[in-house]
């Protein structure tokens, strides 16, 4: 079944590049829309149907997981992919360019869907490179100098990251003798004296993932890439690409019990705390709307890693919930910035002010997104931060719990600063005939805002049925 999600996307990419080109260029957008909606439907199918279909179409050589974590990731990929596709339809005017974007988006989806269902370290790397190769091209879509700069920085740091990851794979292979997740789980659970080779291997692999997820001090590429990319690509990058290619693998390694040694947990805690602080402080300085959101994204990834550092079931649940929330909220805020840019043609926050009066839908949804991401009840962002704080406190890490609470004040401060600059206050000169952004910007932002409100209000219902079981490892 999960294999189908990869095969369908691959088949779609091949088919739309066949002749007659003119015909397929017209339907490419609708085909991608259909496939992503299909993925959304697939995720909500009952588990028994999944298992049934899986025996029909899986092969023994390419085993895959369909546990709840993979489901959450597939759901986020479908949602963010749809949002990026709709914004691309509005943002990219030329039919040829839209066609190219759709092809790259489908390739990216193949990579991400593959990455969240594979069961060994090397295949994980393989799909990660598929995503990366598609994303480099997407960043340089508009072929200006900033785009090349962002893409090349991402390219170099990714190359270093993949080298580290492969060195980790090699060392793990030389000590554990296999690369499948099951073998790693058994090795780390049953070996009394874990050898230095395996620990260093895991450390190197983690270092690669740290670069890929943009943790401080490896975050240099991230703001440049997010800022230089075209708006739909920024949504895709911030919402899901860095999450599934860096953070997902960290969560998976944690759930496998690979991060057992205390030193690894301390490492995660230290990196998480530094990332939250430095990302938030840097976000306060920014003048560019998208660059500010990029630094905010760095800071939120810090929360996810901090929660992983707790090393408990509740910690993993908090990390996964925050990852999902972040995918929803950061795409929402990037859609808002894209909507503002589509009408005003600028991203400089100093040249903005009072846009909420002229763009009521964009203004309202962006307030919801900003409040939710800074952890104000009753939105979903509040609950995920609460789970993270409780997990840290219960694990005995009281200072880190206090730090997480205080740092969310920083989040609130830069989000309110952004709101005050862009949407609140008096309308500045020269924007008297500003209109609300197009339907394709409003629709995704309203849907995403409804998701965060719904999750927040319905949280008591999902905590026992969906949230906690996600963190339990079963396949």
């Amino acid at each position, binding site marked *: 079944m999960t294999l189908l999600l990869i095969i369908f996307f691959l088949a779609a990419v091949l088919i739309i590049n066949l002749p007659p080109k003119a015909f397929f260029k017209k339907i490419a957008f609708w085909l991608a829309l259909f496939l992503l909606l299909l993925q959304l439907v697939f995720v909500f199918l009952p588990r028994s149907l999944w298992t049934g279909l899986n025996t029909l179409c899986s092969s023994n050589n390419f085993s895959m997981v369909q546990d709840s974590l993979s489901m959450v990731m597939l759901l986020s990929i479908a949602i963010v992919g749809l949002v990026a596709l709709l914004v691309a339809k509005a943002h990219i005017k030329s039919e040829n360019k839209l066609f190219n974007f759709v092809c790259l988006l489908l390739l990216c989806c193949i990579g991400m869907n593959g990455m969240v269902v594979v069961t060994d370290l090397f295949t994980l790397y393989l799909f990660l490179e598929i995503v990366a190769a598609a994303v480099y091209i997407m960043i340089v879509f508009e072929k200006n100098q900033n785009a090349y*700069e962002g893409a090349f920085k991402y*390219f170099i740091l990714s190359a270093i990251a993949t080298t580290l990851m492969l060195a980790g794979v090699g060392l793990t292979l030389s000590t554990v003798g296999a690369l499948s997740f099951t073998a790693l789980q058994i090795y780390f659970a049953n070996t009394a004296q874990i050898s230095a080779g395996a620990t260093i291997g895991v450390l190197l692999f983690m270092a690669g993932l740290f670069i890929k997820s943009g943790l401080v001090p490896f975050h240099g590429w991230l703001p440049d890439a997010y800022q230089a990319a075209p708006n739909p690509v920024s949504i895709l990058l911030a919402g899901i690409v860095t999450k599934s290619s860096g953070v997902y693998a960290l969560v998976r390694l944690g759930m496998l019990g690979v991060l057992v040694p205390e030193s690894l947990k301390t490492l995660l805690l230290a990196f998480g705390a530094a990332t939250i602080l430095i990302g938030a402080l840097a976000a306060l300085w920014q003048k560019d709307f998208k660059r500010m959101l990029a630094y905010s994204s760095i800071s939120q990834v810090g929360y996810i890693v901090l929660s992983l550092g707790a090393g408990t079931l509740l910690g993993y649940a908090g990390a996964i919930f925050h990852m999902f929330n972040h995918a929803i909220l950061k795409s929402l805020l990037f859609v808002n910035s894209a909507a503002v840019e589509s009408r005003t043609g600028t991203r400089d926050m100093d040249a903005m002010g009072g846009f909420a009066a002229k763009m009521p839908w964009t203004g309202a949804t962006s307030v919801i997104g900003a409040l939710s991401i800074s952890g104000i009840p009753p939105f979903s962002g509040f609950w995920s931060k609460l789970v993270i704080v409780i997990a840290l406190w219960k694990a005995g890490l009281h200072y880190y719990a206090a730090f997480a609470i205080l740092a969310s004040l920083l989040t609130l401060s830069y989000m309110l600063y952004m709101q005050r600059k862009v949407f609140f206050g008096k309308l500045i000169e020269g924007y008297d005939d500003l209109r609300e952004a197009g339907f394709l910007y409003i629709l995704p932002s309203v849907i995403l805002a409804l998701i965060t409100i719904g999750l927040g209000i319905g949280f008591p219902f999902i905590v026992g049925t969906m949230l906690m079981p996600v963190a339990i490892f079963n396949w």
Partner: protein
Amino acid sequence: MNGDLNQLFGLFLLFLSLLLIAGVYLITATRNLIRILIGMEIMTKAVTLLIIAAGYVTANIALAQSIVITLIIVEVVVLLVGAGIVVGVFMLTGDISVKALKNMRG
């Protein structure tokens, strides 16, 4: 792993670390985008050899071989995209030095 094999693997690791350091040095020292790509290739070659050696010492050579063949293909695809970016930079600025890529700060 017996003693002889272990010693051999240790020596091999030493050699691979040197290769890796050479790649990292090339990336950090040069200002030329093409040379940065070459440095990346050297680094990837070092880890490719490491995987082969790891497969040899754990008697897992079949797994290591299939991994390495896949790795080479993936690496070429990624390098192609990187070279495309360098060509784009050259067509835009007429320069293949890192200086062309220093707009964004902070």
